[in-house]
């Protein structure tokens, strides 16, 4: 097990679009476990491979109170349902910043597990928000992209200073 390094906005690598996973081997299994460990240690409820500078379609999520319900989604695709509702979001790649973002109320995920077996899942609430947020990472998007240019510039500037 190993903790992975999380990239911070405005790192350009966060803008990379991830490739689908084609090889389902022990290395993929290990990578998913490392991602989970990194997410729990952060502490976080979701993490995308893009954030640890691996540009493959893998996300991990655990929104449970007791941290005992981990999900791994490989090559996820989303179908969005319901109204757009506002929820407060943060991001491990945009430390200490939180803001309200509009997301679809419900989501249906189609994905495969680390063995390459297909499954689908429906989610709502925090899990739905988190899945949408992490899938955005795989497309090179960040939650701050939904904010006004003014707000985004302010955050970018602040984090650039913090990184300097």
């Amino acid at each position: 097990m190993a903790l992975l390094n999380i990239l911070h906005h405005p790192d350009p690598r966060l803008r990379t679009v991830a490739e689908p996973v084609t090889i389902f081997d022990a290395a993929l299994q290990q990578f998913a476990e490392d991602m989970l460990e990194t997410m729990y240690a952060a502490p976080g409820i979701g993490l995308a491979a893009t954030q640890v500078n691996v540009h493959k379609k893998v996300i991990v999520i655990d929104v449970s109170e007791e941290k005992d319900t981990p999900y791994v989604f490989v090559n996820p695709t989303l179908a969005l349902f319901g109204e757009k509702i506002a929820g407060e979001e943060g991001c491990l790649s945009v430390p200490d910043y939180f803001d309200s973002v509009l997301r679809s109320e419900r989501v249906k995920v189609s994905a495969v597990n680390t063995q390459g077996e297909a499954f689908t899942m429906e989610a709502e609430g925090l899990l739905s928000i988190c899945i949408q947020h992490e899938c955005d990472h795989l497309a090179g998007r960040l939650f701050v992209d939904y904010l006004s240019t003014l707000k985004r510039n302010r955050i970018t500037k602040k984090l650039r200073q913090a990184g300097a």
Partner: protein
Amino acid sequence: MPSTKPSTNIRAQVVHGLQQITEQGRTLDWLLEHRSNWCETPLQRELLYGCARHYDALAATIDTYLKKPFKPKDQDIYALMIVGAYQLIFMKTPSYAAINETVNAARVLSKPWAKGLVNAVLRQIDRSIQTDELVTSGIEWAALCHPTWLSQKIQTQYPQRWQAVLLANNSRAPMTLRINTPRCSIAAYCAMLDAAGMRYQTTSLDETVTLDQPLPAEDLPGWGEGYVSVQDLGTQFAAHLLCQHLAEQSTTAVASEPGVPSDGTAAGISENPKSEPLRILDACTAPGGKLFHLHERLLAKGTVHEIVAVDAIQKRLDATETIGKRLQHFNSPENADSSGNDLVGNIAKNSDLTKVGSAQTMLTISPLQLICGDASQDTLTAGGEFDAILLDAPCSGSGTLRRHPDMRLLMQPEQLTAHTELQAAMLRNLWQQLKPGGTLLYVTCSIFAEENDAVIEQFMAENSTACGLSCALPHGEATHLGWQILPSLNGPDGLYFCALYKTTQQ
């Protein structure tokens, strides 16, 4: 996505803050600047400062209940236990609430497995408090709150008083106010405090009071008007010592007997027969407390003066200027309020000396000049020689441990001598800029001889023109060459003063 918005759990934030100090070597000042949401509320601040102050002793207490040390990745749980133990011992929270809230914070830290352990350890600590087994008010606890090398060093240097120093370091510094007497009389300001229901004690200095209850400075009466500053009592002796020596200089100059301290009183300055302003250099001025105090003292005495204030960092000079503006020491003369007997004095920033007067007193507007420069470099020639120089030298700050509770966690033994070369270089350089017959006041907020007497002794050995002047203050004691104030409960910080007179003959 992160687990929770950080501001949603106070204890978790205090844990992050403590880890920044103990693991990353950050200071509380850094946290205040960069992670202000971690120390936003009074409770967060109390927990963070208190845990830093008592960290080593709390850790030692917790360790007695732990079977094995924590892994590096679980140090957050260890820090959480420190927070819980601090709350149990030093705050009025009922035990069950303190324990429950701390246990719940383990979940916020995403370590629900630790809840049982945190609960068990805190319950045992609570029991040992109830049975008086754990004593946290005495010298043993205070000593545990210092790194061993530091408490031993204090003990070696002050074999009689080390216990009082350790206890004072563990206390909270009082909030001491300096009344800007040229702008507001002492009586008028005390009446404002009375009216606001703020209780205070008088001190050994007329213009200085200590509040019974600290509060945010902005809440003080007359803060925006610049009637008052917050400044430690000990540091306020710098201006008084300089004024005293300047008075002696002027009277001895008349008697043409340099080197012999006369019994000249402060009033002697204003009778200075020359109309030339006294030129004073404040060599390491930021944040300007001593500078503005000195200026206020000289204004109050009606002494014609100009002060060149130097600091190496422009950002800190900017902050100094902001403070000076609040105190109305940089205002333009047209805003001057010359109507009252007490409310007087606005100072032109330019170099022209302008006189304004009222029927009662003749007042002089004196310039304060802020300059960015390095006091150890001879390029610092601010236009000629000075009648007096204040050197508030960079030092370890070992006399201010109670004000900076994180320092005991961060301080290393070598830091006590890290500044001595710079201190000596500044002394050597500034001495060139002192007029014969002038006085240099060397000040540190250190309690260790390495930065105090030892630096002066070395300097005097190299400079035959330097001779020591006696200092005597209402707090502290004479050292071999200077004067040492030790930190005390409700008293001043630890400070060192040494006044050096420059003889006219070689």
